[in-house]
């Protein structure tokens, strides 16, 4: 019942965000996952195929927003739609926070992304589901020096 990692890749396969919740992966594993997953997902037809695909006894739930793939890896027993919508929730938070988010926002604010994620997910679990609470909290943290 948890997320193993969240990836944001662009269409070329460049990592825009990688959050590894599962700490048993080695550096090599991570490299392999990223290239495998990019190959797997970029070859799928967004119109005809579902947003879920099994990968190494986990389930990848993903969705494309403009040039970016938002991907999360969850347990096989987990609810696909719930996590698919959770990714959308994350995107909405980013969109409000960065005021019309685009790929460059993620590039230049890479360290902030981790702070944002730390208010929505933690240790692979969903931590907060109220958009207002998350945005208020982020605004509060930004004011701290």
């Amino acid at each position, binding site marked *: 019942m948890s997320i193993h990692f969240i990836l944001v890749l662009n269409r070329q396969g460049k990592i825009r965000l990688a959050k590894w919740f599962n700490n048993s992966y080695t550096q090599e594993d991570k490299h392999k996952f990223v290239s495998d997953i990019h190959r797997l997902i970029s070859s799928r037809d967004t119109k005809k195929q579902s947003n879920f695909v099994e990968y190494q006894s986990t389930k990848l739930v993903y969705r494309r927003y403009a040039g970016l793939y938002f991907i999360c890896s969850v347990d096989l027993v987990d609810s696909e*739609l719930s996590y698919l919508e959770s990714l*959308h929730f994350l995107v909405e938070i980013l969109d409000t926070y960065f005021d019309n988010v685009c790929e460059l926002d993620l*590039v230049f604010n890479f*360290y902030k992304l981790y702070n944002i994620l730390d208010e929505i997910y933690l240790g692979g679990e969903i931590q907060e589901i109220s958009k207002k609470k998350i945005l208020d909290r982020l605004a509060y943290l930004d004011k701290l020096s």
Partner: protein
Amino acid sequence: MKGLNQFIVDIRNSKDIEEEKKRINLELNNIQSKFNSNINSYQKKKYVCKLIYIYLSGYADSVDFGLKESFQLVCSSSHSEKQLGYLALSVLINNDKSTQSTRDFLDSLLDQVHSYLIKDLQSSNEDTNCLAVQFIASNFNLPESTTVRVNEADESAPKWLELIDIVYSFVTSPIHKSVIKKKAAIALYSLLKLYPQVLISNNNWIPRLLSLADDKDYGVSIASIPLIQFVVKSKPQFVKAIIPAISLKLYNIIIENKCPEEYYYYKSPAPWLVVKLLQLIEYFFFLSDTNDYAVLSIADLDEQTLNNLRSVVAQSIQNASQPIKGLPNRNSQSSTLFQAVSLAVFLDASSDAINGAINALMMLLTSNETNTRYLALDALIKLTARSTSNNLSASPSIDEKYTKIFKLLYDRDISVRRKSLDLLYTITNASSYSMVITKLLDYFPLCDFTLKPELAIKIAVLAEKFATDSTWYVTTMLKLLSISGGVNSNGTNYIGNEVWERIVQIIVNNEDLQKKTSKLIINLLKKPFSSTDNTPIALSENLIKVAAFVLGEYGDQVTYMSELSTKLQFHLLYDAYFKVSLTTRAMLLTTFLKFFVKYPDEDFIPEIMDLFEIEELSLDLEIQTRAHEYLTLATHKYSQQLFKEVLKPMPIFVKKESHLMDRIGSVSHIVGVNRSKSLVLAKNISSNKSKAARGIDSSPILDENSDGSNPFEEESKPVVLSPNWYSGYHRMLHYDAGIFYEDQLIKITYRVIKEGCALTLKLTIINNSAKTAGTDITGLTVLNLESLTDDHDPNYVLNLKQLPESTFHDKANMEISVKIRNVVENHESPILSITFMCGGSFNTLNLKFPVLLLKTLTSTALNGLDEFNRRWAQIGELLGPQGESSQAVNLTHRYNSSNIVRLLSRLGFAVVHATSDETDNTILVMGAGILHTQKTNYGVLATLKSTDQVGKEFEVAIRCSGGGVAEVVAITMKEILEGKF
């Protein structure tokens, strides 16, 4: 940070990878020299940030410094610097991991950061606490399946414990804000996964952790679900305590619309929380104890809880049956629907509700969204696989439904195609199998290569499971084998060996099939099934394999028909020989040897000899060996005896389970699918009573081991009863109403209602603090109702009929019903554990209440002392010492005869004789009654006689019509009189 932005721009502007590398190396040198000089904390933050960027851009190997500066940032008093310091640590320390084990990595990480974490956890600033808690949850987290464990004896154990203790205090502290509570709940979960022993040795933590589910803050609720699931998994006996709170929470969200505005996602109330809570309850139904008994069944739920859950499920299904606008809404509603459907089966939902769910899901099958079609299929599979009464196949307009599902076999997405195949497999039953299999056989040639092996196995299993006509079975299976000829691009067969091997097993075991199959197979080899479009069908290796075996063993049974002659059989196989693979050829060589022995006078014998000679030179070792040995046998002056030994007929197969099931695919993982019994095979296997077959069926070995103990029970201490529990217990022994328990906060009164072997215990919980301090009781949970009788053949059964309200000002009612099944021993009384909050304090009560045989006593009218004496003697004659027990009783104060008479009547005895208070020196009272159990009733006779002059010493003698029962009753009587245990 301007410098950082400029640096990122520079990197992005690099013309090629060489230039990028150059810039990065330049910057690395620059950062290193800056770190060596004196820089302020802002600069430190900027350079560490650049370092992280370089690391994440794929230059991890070049970043081998910066830890010292990261630690310095962690020590900063500025929040943003501290935050970046922690981020840098989690990124940079990860670097070393590839060279060591996960456990070593975690220990070394702990070593490095422990003192920093402790300092920040102890800070009075909650934002600082949060950063440390987040670091723990992010960096010490492993999946629950991990085998990495910290043990008490480990050197690092004290450090882990220190973290756990502080994090636990955040989770349960009443003064901390919910933002740190929810983070701490997740961090605690991560730590307990590594060090589960802590939970087992801290029994008192559990009620507090379970109460998190009821937290008003939805963030705390959802964040603590994994922790709660983990706790219940290690202590399954708490599952019943937690369900009422969860179902009430769901009820409030879905039915009562009590979800706070800020937790709405579009129009759906807290969809993620709802899904997780439903999932948690479903998980509870899957929990089993160490003997594989389910921990939770629907009978364990009180009516209110069950009704809440059923309404939630029904409402969720109904919500999703209406057209919904907007993708986020649709997805949220559907995710709730699928989770609700998944749970519905466990709730024993009415067939109306299940049919409603089926219809809603069938509607989704035609959705334009691939996701929805896929998930609706998945939900239907779960629903049908788990439900015992096959609702889907029995539902109205089933034909229409089949048509819909068959259509999905041709869906654009292969995942959907695979799921629809799984669904067909689960819903097929005795009335539809033939239609489904025919359709699936038609589908075979059109099916994806990757799906073919699965399809073949599903057809084989279904055919075997439902076949009632053996000819149909063999025809169908041979057809499957012949159309599944050919190989995929890797050169492997579409279908695995399991399929043809299974057919052979069945033919061997069913004599009546042998002749039939021989006929069919010859005809098939002569004239293969033609496909519709007239393309030649590839020669099926699997069919040849079966033919090689069947004709070799049973071919002689059909040779009386000219069109099935031996000669013809031989030529059919011989023609195939050079077209098939080496494994099949090896099989054919054996077949030819059988022909050689069975038909020594046929004119094809020289051809066999030639073949053996040629193959003696084969490059394949197996073929060469066989050819050589067979040739030697054939040219040797053989004796018939030798051949009989070499070519013994195949013995009957005794193994009951089929290898097909190993290959059935993901459907087999869904609970409730039980398809290993074969109709075709069953008759012969069961009549063939081999040891092996019985070994699988009978289970005395299992029974010996199941002593009903829970391994966690042994490790944990037994429940410690609350102080002052005994007076209420003792009162309940002989009074049917009164005060069960009282302290400053709470008072519990009781009433016992007897009805034969059924007892009803009505408890009223009164808030004592309402008058004194005006506070409410909140979070009242019946944590456990621990019956101490044997689990698997209990002497009594408890049922929580009515749960008390969790929050109240004055009082709350609860009701427990007890059924006495058999003679209850005196030490088996249950313990009621409840927890509640009152004015910020968390309280636990563990109270024992008497469930005793004597509580079922009702009076019986005897015709005076004479009948009493007659029966008394009768029991003595019949049962001897087994029928009687007497106990010496010492009372603390004096009793006279009327006291004893009142006591006996209160207990339910009919008093038959009593000495007078005034005249008699010795007190003697006699009473009679009937004890009730579900199995039988017992007559019981009691005699109380004083053994001193003042009425403080008595002898209690009991005779009872059940062997051994008298002693149980006598001991209870002694306890009642003496007030001691």
